[in-house]
């Protein structure tokens, strides 16, 4: 049993952190957030040079074949640094392509920083149930025709291609009949409406009107996309847990700094025992969440879907609980400063609140956890 990162992992984590400290400061980040696109071409270029875009891509397509543990190292840093670039969306999308095994060119473009991806899976009504799909995929000559509307597509407008779920058969919430496609964002019939998200990022409503795609756009087998969706969603969960861990680390640390510095009644407020005990509770949450984020990254590739679901849902639950506790307490302990837009703390808080609502909240994953066979005595 070994909880250490390899030297190599530490190195690229450090490199990423150095780049953020130097070139992606809070002020820079805020400028990017308020820019028209909400992302930075220069930053993407830098991330490509740091090998970040290649990391999740298989070596066959010019990538570094990074696993979920490698991704933990980098996602932590993205979280800590509040990076708003479409890295999560792209890495998550790449996982679909990797599972599909037929999108070598696009994966190569991802590895080399030429292509960004986004995942258009949710719909207005679907909440966290990714199998709840109204968007239709009909056979159309050699290919397919997609119609429907996807909502809250993270970095949809910044992507070059979208992974899209659609129903080629079955009823609205059937697990069978789901098909996955990859669709370039310049495909005719696609309308993308970009907007800001609460945590300073971008998302979009993506409308498909008679969008024709070739047969090669299909990921996996027609109507059998459910397992791929399930596994890729779990991969997304471990990325988010890893990112949340970095966010919480930074937020806890700035809270500690704040209570040690902020003076009231002639002493640092961190000398008040009631606050000390709450900080101790935050610390316990943080370490328990760290354990679960690590466990999730380590078990992502365990090969047993039941065990994978169990651990990923457990991690999302536990990290979600920690995120809520640490986030809310950090704001409270920062006092007035905690509710301004001016400190990174409130942006860390917002990111945590939004991670909680991405790919399933605490209740969703508790329910999924208890539905697993492994939960039975």
């Amino acid at each position, binding site marked *: 049993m070994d909880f250490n990162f390899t030297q190599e992992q530490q190195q690229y984590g450090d490199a990423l952190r150095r780049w953020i400290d130097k070139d992606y400061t809070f002020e820079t980040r805020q400028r990017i957030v308020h820019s028209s696109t909400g992302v930075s071409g220069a930053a993407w270029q830098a991330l490509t040079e740091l090998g970040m875009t290649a990391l999740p891509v298989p070596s066959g397509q010019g990538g570094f074949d990074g696993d979920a543990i490698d991704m933990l190292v980098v996602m932590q840093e993205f979280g800590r640094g509040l990076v708003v670039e479409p890295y999560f969306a792209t890495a998550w999308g790449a996982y679909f392509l990797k599972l599909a095994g037929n999108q070598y060119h696009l994966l190569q473009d991802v590895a080399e920083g030429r292509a960004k991806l986004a995942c258009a899976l949710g719909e207005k009504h679907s909440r966290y149930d990714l199998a709840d799909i109204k968007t239709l995929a009909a056979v159309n000559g050699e290919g397919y025709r997609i119609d429907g509307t996807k909502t809250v597509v993270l970095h949809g407008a910044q992507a070059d291609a979208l992974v899209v779920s659609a129903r080629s058969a079955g009823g609205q919430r059937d697990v069978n009949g789901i098909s996955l496609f990859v669709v370039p964002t310049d495909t005719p019939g696609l309308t993308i409406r970009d907007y*800001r998200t609460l945590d300073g990022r971008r998302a979009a409503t993506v409308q498909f009107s008679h969008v024709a795609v070739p047969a090669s756009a299909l990921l996996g087998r027609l109507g059998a996309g459910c397992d791929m969706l399930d596994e890729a969603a779990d991969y997304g969960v471990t990325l988010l847990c890893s990112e949340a861990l970095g966010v919480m680390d930074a937020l806890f640390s700035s809270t500690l700094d704040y209570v040690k510095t902020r003076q009231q*009644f002639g002493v640092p407020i961190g000398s008040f025992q*009631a606050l000390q005990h709450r900080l101790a509770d935050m610390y316990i949450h943080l370490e328990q969440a760290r354990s679960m984020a690590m466990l999730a990254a380590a078990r992502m590739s365990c090969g047993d879907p039941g065990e994978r679901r169990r651990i990923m849902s457990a991690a999302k639950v536990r990290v979600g609980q920690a995120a809520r506790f640490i986030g809310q307490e950090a704001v*409270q302990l920062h006092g007035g400063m905690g*509710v*301004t837009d001016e400190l990174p703390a409130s942006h860390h808080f*917002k990111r945590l609140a*939004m991670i909680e609502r991405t790919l399933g*909240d605490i209740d969703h994953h*508790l329910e999924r956890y208890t539905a697993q066979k492994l939960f039975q005595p």
Partner: protein
Amino acid sequence: MDLSYTAADLAFRDKVRAFLAANLPPDLQKKVRNHVRLTRNDYVRWHQIAARQGWSAPGWPVEHGGPGWTPTQRHIWEEECGRAGTPQILPFGVNMVAPVIMAFGSAAQKAHYLPRILNCEDWWCQGYSEPGAGSDLASLKTRAVRVNDVYIVNGQKTWTTLAQHADMMFCLVRTDPDVRKQEGISFLLIDMTSPGITVRPILTLDEEHEVNEVFFENVRVPAINLVGQENKGWTYAKYLLGHERTGIAGVGRSKRELAFLKKLANEHSKHGKPLLQDPLFATKVANVEIELMALETTVLRVITRNAHSPGPEASLLKIRGTEIQQWITELMIEVLGPNALPFDLAYLDGDSEHAVTGDDAGAPLAANYLNMRKTSIYGGSNEIQKNIIAQMILGL
């Protein structure tokens, strides 16, 4: 013991309801119910509608223009306004500076300011907190030096709510730096148009311009604007703190928000069934509803015992009231799920008719969740309230 409203109370409630039905402008009501941010004019409009009815200052004595209501009637008014979704009658004038002026102000101050507060001719803001003086308010540093018949004020206030709209500020300033920190403080009324005042916005985490920093650079305040005696300001501030804090629980408002939450949870579904029928979610809503039911009863217990100043029990009402408000906003974004992510500033600020996502009711809720984090911090943080309970009630 009889926990029902009397026939007279019920008749009064009907009167209030009729008034609200006839006089609350639908556009204002829609904004409030939909969590869209209000403009200066929105607040003033509603205040003046209430004032025309003689109801803008429910807690005031009749001699100054109060309606002469019983504590229960005041509670009913607050509750009905909350439920209907009126803009808040901001407390800075009516509930904060006015009682101090009534108790300690000069005849001239009373004659000048009180009618103007009643009718919202002046917009007041509160000059209390400073960068170094939050929970430890008495350590404030803003300096006022008397030179003949003016005070020269230098220093800085912060977290000043809606100061960008304000005509007047009631302000705690240090007039004697050489005594115990509570003893050298005075209570000044400052005209916000005075030269030397700079108001700098602080954006809150939901990118709202609600609070400000206010800088004073050799601001000249006529000495007749001193309330009461020099160096006795801390006494007045404490008087104010113990005054009129029943509305602090926000029961009426929380009832409206809870009803909104339930409607929302009934319209959103999970696995094809309304979320309000999901056992986990329904239970959370029930827990808040029960806590609110208990709090309303606690409020009524407190106000029927102690009409004007609930005393340290107000700390209980503040803590639980703000927690309930926060829980409700949290549950609202739980309902939205992933649809909580979009942030539509134009719609929030009332600059756009509809939300970019098409979900007008849902769009402001995540920002609302963020915004409401302040409630456990402002007005004496909930930690300070617990200290008060421990010391004043539990004798620890």
